[in-house]
């Protein structure tokens, strides 16, 4: 099946041209695609500076790639016709991190829902608009009579974030990109919001890209995961395998640092030799911090080695295992 959106050898650098000494590479030679029509959630995980937000901005067409192409239905989104662009805008929806910033405080929250309905001509009259809005709100577990007609400041962060999810839902998109949707929401409301996303994913068969630094929620909500470090894929595959048996020393460091809310599951041994965030210019980007690095790591960039079924790590520790070509990254996320 043809992917909905696709990154083809995309590189994004800031502060100069590719290769110039001052340029910061936010995302490097990334090939990735999302297939429509079946429910799956892929987490894009990484720390600040890993390139996860850059990847989202590229997928949403907010950034133009420095090299490579971003495709929607097989067409370059920066070269497509206006009608196709509108179609792209409708079918690829996003939920952003900050439930306070997406609202205009002077307008009632109804606006956030009614504007897309109006813009895309989804309803013929006021009655239909109202019905659509109510349906979407009930989908995310909000009572329309307690929500519509209110101003943003009258609602909690969790409620506002759920309305943002409802807004995306109104358009019945083919792909939803959620950028840290729960990081600013209270713990007691987090689980509900993630459940809303998961239900929506299942009921409407909308694939979701879940962008986060929080591996605990990623583990619970998603099916697959991509771990990024300084713009490159370190490890990818089935979320259960990656979190339970991380293979890349970087993922091991991350997983070991998760503060599990369980007094019997304490932080594991730290596995890092030097603290730092500077990426190596040659070889594996994680090599300077890696406790297991050897000569080869500083000379060559490791490809993605398959470590077991549905799980691959970009690390020379697994040299000799079958290689997953960069272009075949999405083969690690099979339909099931």
């Amino acid at each position: 099946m043809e992917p909905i959106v696709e990154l083809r050898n995309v590189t994004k650098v800031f502060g100069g041209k590719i290769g110039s000494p001052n340029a910061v590479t936010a995302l490097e030679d990334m090939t990735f695609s999302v297939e429509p029509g079946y429910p799956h959630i892929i987490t894009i995980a990484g720390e600040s500076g890993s390139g996860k937000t850059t990847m989202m901005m590229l997928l949403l067409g907010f950034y133009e790639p420095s090299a490579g192409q971003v495709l929607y239905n097989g067409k370059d989104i920066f070269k497509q016709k206006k009608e196709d662009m509108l179609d792209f805008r409708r079918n690829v929806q996003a939920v952003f991190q900050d439930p306070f910033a997406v609202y205009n405080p002077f307008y009632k929250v109804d606006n956030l829902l009614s504007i897309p309905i109006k813009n895309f001509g989804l309803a013929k009259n006021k009655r239909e608009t109202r019905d659509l809005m109510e349906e979407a709100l009930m989908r995310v577990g909000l009572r329309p009579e307690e929500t519509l007609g209110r101003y943003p400041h009258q609602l909690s962060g969790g409620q506002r974030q759920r309305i943002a999810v409802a807004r995306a839902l109104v358009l019945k998109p083919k792909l939803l990109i959620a950028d840290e949707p729960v990081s600013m929401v209270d713990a007691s409301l987090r689980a509900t919001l993630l459940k809303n996303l998961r239900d929506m994913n299942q009921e409407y068969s909308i694939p979701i890209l879940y962008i986060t630094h929080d591996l605990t929620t990623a583990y619970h909500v998603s099916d697959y995961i991509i771990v990024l470090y300084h713009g490159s894929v370190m490890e990818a595959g089935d979320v259960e395998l990656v979190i339970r048996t991380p293979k890349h020393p970087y993922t091991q460091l991350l997983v070991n640092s998760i503060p599990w809310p369980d007094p019997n599951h304490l932080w594991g041994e730290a596995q890092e030799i030097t603290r730092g965030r500077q990426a190596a210019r040659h070889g594996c980007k994680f090599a300077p911090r890696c406790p297991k690095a050897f000569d080869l790591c500083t000379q060559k960039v490791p490809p993605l080695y398959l470590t077991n079924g549905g799980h691959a790590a970009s690390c020379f520790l697994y040299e000799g295992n079958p290689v997953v070509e960069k272009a075949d990254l999405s083969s690690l996320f099979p339909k099931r």
Partner: protein
Amino acid sequence: MTQPNSATLKTYLPLLEIKDLRTYFYVKAGTVKAVDGLDLTLDSGTKLGLVGESGSGKSTMALSIMRMIRMPGTIQGQIMLNGVDLLKLSEDEMRKTRLSEIAMIPQGAMNSLNPVMRIKNQIIDGMLDHGIKGSKREMMNRVYTLLERVELSPRVANMYPHELSGGMKQRVTVAIAISLRPKILIADEPTSALDVVIQRQVMETITGLVRDLDLSMILIGHDMGLMAQSVDRLAVMYAGKLAEVGAMKDLFAEPFHPYTRLLISSLPVLGQRGVFQGIPGIPPSVINPPPGCLFRARCPNVIQGVCDKTFPNYVEVKPGHLVACHLYGGA
């Protein structure tokens, strides 16, 4: 009849004892009862976690201990530090107590350092204010010792905040907080803006210092994961009141208050994936709160005609484990 031995009495005196703390803000819309009748004790050498949703009053409670509540806020009750009521001290005495007795690591280190002052001067500033004098070399030696304590390079002394990463800035605020060897460290979400790896490293530095310098700590936050990794005792706040307090491990293993139960079952643990159990409803407003237990609107175990009448008394369900819920009597 034997007189109680003064030495044994002393060991029973908690380091910090908060009695019936009420921090109210009088605003146009009414009285915001941010902290409403809170009792809490902190024993010497303990790490106490204070969790709650936004608006539950946990940060207000920290600021009340520091007496940093401004008009239209008022603090009533007692905050006894080693037998001295902080609320009765003069402003000048309180100023001396801050940093030297109780120090605070603020939330969001990004905004708490002065952007136009070198790190060394920001560290020295607090010491000078508390009358510590010394030659330039002596003061610099103190700065280097403190930086080493928080695992920063001495080079940091001459830098400005913008040259440091988030984790490094947070370490600087820790260095400032321990500069006068306080007895109590209050850390208000010290790592909420940091990545997991850095969060863990900063947290391990803080708990290491608490151990090595024999401090006591109040860690405030909403991240139950961080609490499970870092504290000995845990206090759960809800709408300005304490719902439950006990040993951290007991609280996780056997929570009594329905709110704590729901909170703990909503947490993602490693085990079965895809199980979500949120807490229905939304946190209540604490402007002119009605009588009774404010969790009743979201509570699965609500007792009609009881929970909306009075706030339950604290019942000691286990030694040192207190719960405020009508399910356990104590009306």
